[in-house]
């Protein structure tokens, strides 16, 4: 089907379904924390605007979370349907990490989600805040485990191989806290926060463009721009550290990211652009800064750097994809930094809520986080090829004994279904975003009476004390 063999189809299916899936966790990790902060501010200050903004984003959260859940279930079964040999061999190491993700994170999120979405009036503000907090913590715990599992595939540690050819753990702490895990975890959680702040900022900016006096959009925009200004530079630092870690443990990935086909004895250039030609093994029309690659990666201007010419061809990752997706991520990261700095400047000049140029920039950057997250994952996952477990298990040796038509048909089914779901979900979310938060903004329980008296924090506290 599509002229691809079963392995390529299985890879296409994984790439498609995981790309679709990651959009939602990236958003819901950040949004859950944002909601917890908003509710805390409401409880602390008693200002209605925080509750309004909270309820506004809560409805959007409900949709995004549902889409994340259903696309996530597909992931947990796909390991078995399409990658059964991988599951058999790696299951004893990866399986427990994922089981702990389910036990410590998924249940926590799902268990408290109902109360978070619909329970404010039933349990009162304090218990409700606890529920919100549990959901937010659950998203972070989930990130912890799944990134540990992914990182183990990138930088395996603490394992042995048994007689059946299965990977088994000899030291769980080394498995969990494998060398690339801390960097990847921080990088991804910050990415989720940035992504969310860009979405929130864009929605705030959209409404400020029409009316710069609306209290809800002002709160959103101000908080989002603080986040962008603080986290974007931090993320660039973390990304640099992550890159150094990759250079240490997965140097071939760095060669592909940098377009270093050839080795450099005294200082490698930093290629800004170029056209990687995998077959010929060269970077065409390269535009680079001499010695800068060594400066960034080795912090030393004429440090020698090996290129792909030192690596057997069959171990090369697909260079063009890795090269370009990396540049997309970095480019967007720099734009985010620009937005953050611009907003700081305008805030200092007292023009944060009235500078239309800033607002337009923020709107344009609204989807940038998603694109950067996907580009970053494409870089790291493609850069790990041709292995599923880096250096140890080849992707071609990981697949199920598959018939191409079966995988092709399921791929086609997922593509059709996901596009329907995605189009509808995005439409409903955009429709919610098109309205600014109103005074007395209802939560997801829209048929409940709007803003009933018993729902203010003060009354809730009294109620809580009385019961």
């Amino acid at each position, binding site marked *: 089907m599509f002229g691809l063999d079963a392995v390529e189809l299985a890879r296409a299916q994984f790439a498609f379904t995981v790309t679709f899936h990651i959009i939602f966790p990236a958003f819901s990790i950040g949004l859950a924390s944002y909601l917890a902060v908003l509710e805390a501010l409401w409880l602390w200050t008693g200002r209605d605007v925080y509750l309004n903004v909270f309820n506004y984003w809560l409805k959007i959260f409900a*949709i995004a979370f*549902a*889409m994340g859940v*259903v696309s996530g*279930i*597909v992931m*947990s*079964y796909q390991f*078995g*349907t399409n990658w*059964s040999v991988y*599951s*058999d*061999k*790696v*299951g*004893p190491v*990866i*399986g*427990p990490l*994922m*089981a*702990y993700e*389910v*036990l*410590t994170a*998924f*249940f*926590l999120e*799902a*268990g*408290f*989600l*109902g*109360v978070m979405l*619909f*329970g404010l009036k*039933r*349990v009162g503000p304090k218990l409700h805040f606890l529920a919100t907090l549990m959901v937010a913590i659950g998203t972070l715990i989930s990130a912890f485990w799944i990134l540990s599992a992914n990182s183990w595939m990138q930088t395996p540690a603490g394992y042995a191989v*048994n007689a059946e050819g*299965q990977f*088994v*753990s*000899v030291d*769980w702490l080394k498995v969990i806290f494998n060398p690339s895990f801390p960097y990847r975890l921080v990088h991804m959680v910050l990415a989720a926060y940035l992504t969310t702040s860009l979405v929130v900022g864009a929605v705030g900016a959209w409404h400020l463009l029409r009316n710069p006096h609306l209290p809800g959009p002002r709160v959103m925009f101000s908080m989002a721009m603080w986040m962008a200004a603080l986290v974007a530079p931090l993320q660039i630092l973390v990304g640099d550290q992550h890159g150094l870690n990759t250079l240490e443990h997965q140097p071939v990935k760095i060669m592909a990211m940098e377009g270093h086909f050839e080795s450099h004895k005294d200082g490698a250039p930093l290629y800004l652009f170029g056209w990687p030609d995998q077959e010929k093994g060269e970077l065409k029309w390269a535009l680079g800064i001499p010695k800068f690659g060594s400066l960034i990666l080795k912090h030393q201007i004429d440090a020698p750097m090996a290129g792909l010419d030192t690596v057997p061809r069959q171990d090369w990752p697909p260079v063009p994809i890795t090269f370009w997706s990396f540049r997309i991520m970095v480019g967007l990261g720099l734009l985010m930094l620009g937005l953050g700095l611009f907003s700081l400047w305008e805030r200092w000049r007292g023009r944060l809520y009235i500078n239309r140029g800033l607002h337009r920039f923020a709107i344009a950057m609204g989807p940038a986080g998603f694109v950067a997250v996907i580009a970053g994952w494409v870089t790291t996952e493609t850069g790990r090829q041709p292995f599923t477990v880096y250096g140890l298990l080849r992707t071609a040796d990981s697949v*199920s*004994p598959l018939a191409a*038509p*079966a995988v092709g048909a399921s791929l086609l*089914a997922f593509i059709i*279904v996901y596009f329907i*779901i995605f189009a*509808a*979900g995005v439409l*409903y979310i955009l429709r*919610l975003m098109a309205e600014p938060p109103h005074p007395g903004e209802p939560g997801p*329980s*829209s*048929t*409940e009476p709007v803003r009933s008296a018993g729902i203010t924090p003060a009354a809730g506290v009294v109620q809580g004390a009385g019961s």
Partner: protein
Amino acid sequence: MNVAVDLATLWAFIIALAVFIYVVMDGFDLGLGILFPLFPGKQDRDVITNTVAPVWDGNETWLVLGGGGLMAAFPLAYSILLPALYAPLIAMLVGLIFRGVAFEFRWRTRATRNLWDIAFAGGSWVAALAQGIALGAILQGVHVEGRHYAGGWWDWLTPFSILTGISLVVGYALLGATWLILKTEGDLRDKAYRISWVLLVLMLLAIAAVSLATPLLTIQYAQRWFSWPAIVLTAPVPLAVIGVTVLLMKNLAQKHDGWPFFLALALFFLSYAGLGISMYPYIVPQSVTIWRAAAPERSQLIMLPGVLVLVPLILGYTGWAYWVFRGKVGHDAGYH
């Protein structure tokens, strides 16, 4: 070695428990989707979806635990069974996607609400049917060579697996109907009573058909059920089914709102125990035992404290969430 043997059995129980809790919890909300075509009114449909809106998410998480737990504790079984069940599992996932998002989407649109209602019902039907077919396909055994599934892509499709598929749809629908008796009032509840009677009869027929067909699949199942002294252990199961059925009929006739749901669950439990009796100690019937499929000891051990501590905790806060949303759901409750 002894430790490993006990661990494998323990983990088989844990996975079986996770799957059973899934069946208990997602069964009734899939059942609501199955019954959707019988409730065409918008108000009724709002109430029906509202009875599970706060909890469906948690219910579905047990399915992830079942799948993830199987991969972690019995990776060999996971890697044989999932390719063997390829088509039904993909169908199940697609069904669950549609019905999951329909919960949220149907509240966000007036124009296409009917379409999402169809997605909710259709997704529930497909998911339930696919789960039942998968169950039948496992029971009838799959072709294994070495550590791989070696059969074809349509091996799962037999009259037996179709029978188990339909049976599960009927069973889930019965759970859904008795759930509505528990959670609703007025005309909606009265209708649920009438539907429950019909579904109970169908369910008994389904249990009888599957029970008769299973021993015919292989001689091992027949011996398991009918040989002496095993029959001392197996005979109480059908007797208990009869007992529970009588109780259920009595409660349906006397219109005790609270009990039919739990008695329907008891029927499920007995059927499920019967499956366990048929399969044990195989995890892939007739080819792979739980001991052969077991992950290395260290993998099964590391998860044990997690399960023993966290599952009770999870049941605790899940119970709390159900408690928060307890009681009858009326037309005005509107969690959305």
